[in-house]
């Protein structure tokens, strides 16, 4: 059947979208692992967007307790394979998408072959064995994958093995290097889950997949997004080494480059130190007015003694030489007096 752009007019008319992006979606092949709370909304929105080929892998059958969040299924479907019903419903609703079902467990023996047939993987599974396997196989086959997972009222989303603007890629193992102790992190059956939460997270996963396929926007590469549905807290954190650490690792075999990088870092640090000193001077100047109002002298030897003692104690904790710190703070103290004296002299 010839696909019509007309059906997708409302997204084609978006700025930067056009028929070219729609064609990229028509040509895209996405594998969704797990047709559960995350998989169902992701599948619905991917097919609705016109993704050309969608594979669904899940070995499980539908249970009554799935229905409040696995929105492809209804009471009549209980006991039937998830992949079978998902394929039927998605094909009927979105005939432009070719839906392929794999009614078995995603495991080492089939992971490589399955993923190699697709451009991108969405992981909607509920266990660490699957997640670490997806991570490993996607790395080997150089495929991006979209991670999503939920814990009670919270969800996480990230894009792995996909370059960010600097060309840096990260993996799930860069974020969580080792699987947690068996049973220490709860799944939905153990922890409970409100249906709308995987709905939101699965939809975010579909959105990341569409961004990667079309090249629109900034995918969550090298970032972990956490969403808390009760407080509406979206929290994004960067994964992987920070830039200075990356530079250092890259140049370890190249001593002159390493030296340059270290000197650049030192320069930056020195500028920051000076900026802090300026900030300190501003603060110190503010001391003068209330001191004058209280008829206090310019220099308060007791005050200085107490704060120096504190500095020296901190120096010991920080493992830095006390003599060095005392010298620096003596200079800083002198500068404080000079700054305040300017104001005292004006009065």
């Amino acid at each position, binding site marked *: 059947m010839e696909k019509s752009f007309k059906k997708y007019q409302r997204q084609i008319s978006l700025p930067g979208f056009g028929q070219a992006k729609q064609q990229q979606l028509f040509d895209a092949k996405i594998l969704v692992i*797990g047709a*559960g*709370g*995350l*998989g169902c909304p992701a599948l619905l929105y991917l097919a609705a967007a016109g993704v050309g080929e969608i594979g669904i892998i899940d070995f499980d059958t539908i249970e009554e307790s799935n229905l409040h969040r696995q929105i492809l299924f209804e009471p009549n479907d209980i006991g039937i394979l998830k992949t079978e019903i998902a394929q039927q419903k998605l094909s009927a609703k979105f005939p432009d998408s070719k839906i392929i079902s794999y009614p078995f467990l995603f495991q080492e023996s089939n992971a490589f072959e399955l993923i190699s047939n697709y451009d991108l993987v969405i*992981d*909607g*599974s*509920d*266990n*660490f064995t699957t997640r670490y396997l997806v991570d490993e196989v996607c790395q080997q086959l150089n495929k991006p994958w979209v991670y*999503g*997972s*939920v*814990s*009670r009222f*919270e*969800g*996480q989303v990230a894009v792995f093995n996909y370059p960010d603007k600097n060309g840096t890629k990260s993996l799930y193992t860069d*974020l*969580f290097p*080792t699987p*947690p*102790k068996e049973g*220490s*992190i*709860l*799944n*939905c059956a153990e*922890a409970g*889950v409100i249906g709308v939460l*995987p709905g939101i997270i699965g939809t975010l996963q579909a959105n990341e997949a569409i961004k990667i396929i079309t090249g629109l926007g900034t995918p969550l590469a090298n970032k*972990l997004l*956490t969403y*808390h549905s009760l*407080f509406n*807290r979206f*929290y*994004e*954190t*960067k*994964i*992987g080494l*920070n830039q200075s650490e990356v530079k250092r690792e890259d140049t370890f075999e190249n001593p002159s480059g390493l030296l340059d990088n270290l000197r650049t870092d030192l320069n930056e640090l020195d500028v920051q130190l000076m900026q802090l000193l300026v900030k300190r001077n501003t603060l110190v100047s503010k001391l003068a007015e209330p001191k004058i109002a209280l008829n206090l002298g310019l220099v308060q030897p007791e005050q200085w003694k107490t704060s120096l003692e504190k500095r020296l104690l901190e120096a010991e*904790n*920080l493992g830095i030489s006390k003599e060095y710190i005392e010298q620096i703070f003596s200079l800083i103290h002198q500068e404080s007096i000079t700054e305040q004296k300017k104001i005292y002299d004006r009065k």
Partner: protein
Amino acid sequence: MKIQVLAFGQILDITQKDSWEEEGILNLNQLQEKLWNDYPALKEISFVFSINKQISKDGALLSDGCEVALLPPFSGG
């Protein structure tokens, strides 16, 4: 020196508060010790630290006013 600590996922279930202040903590090792002491159940949960929205390694130094997020992996799907 004060830092702000944020809890996520099962960590939040244990601490029962999503953010709080800690004082006099200089690095992540010290923070981990303090957390394990205050909430022994955290010893059973694996999680990573993020300092000012950047995942950070064990022992990383903290600075005054920084924000440290405690991020466990989630499992539900």
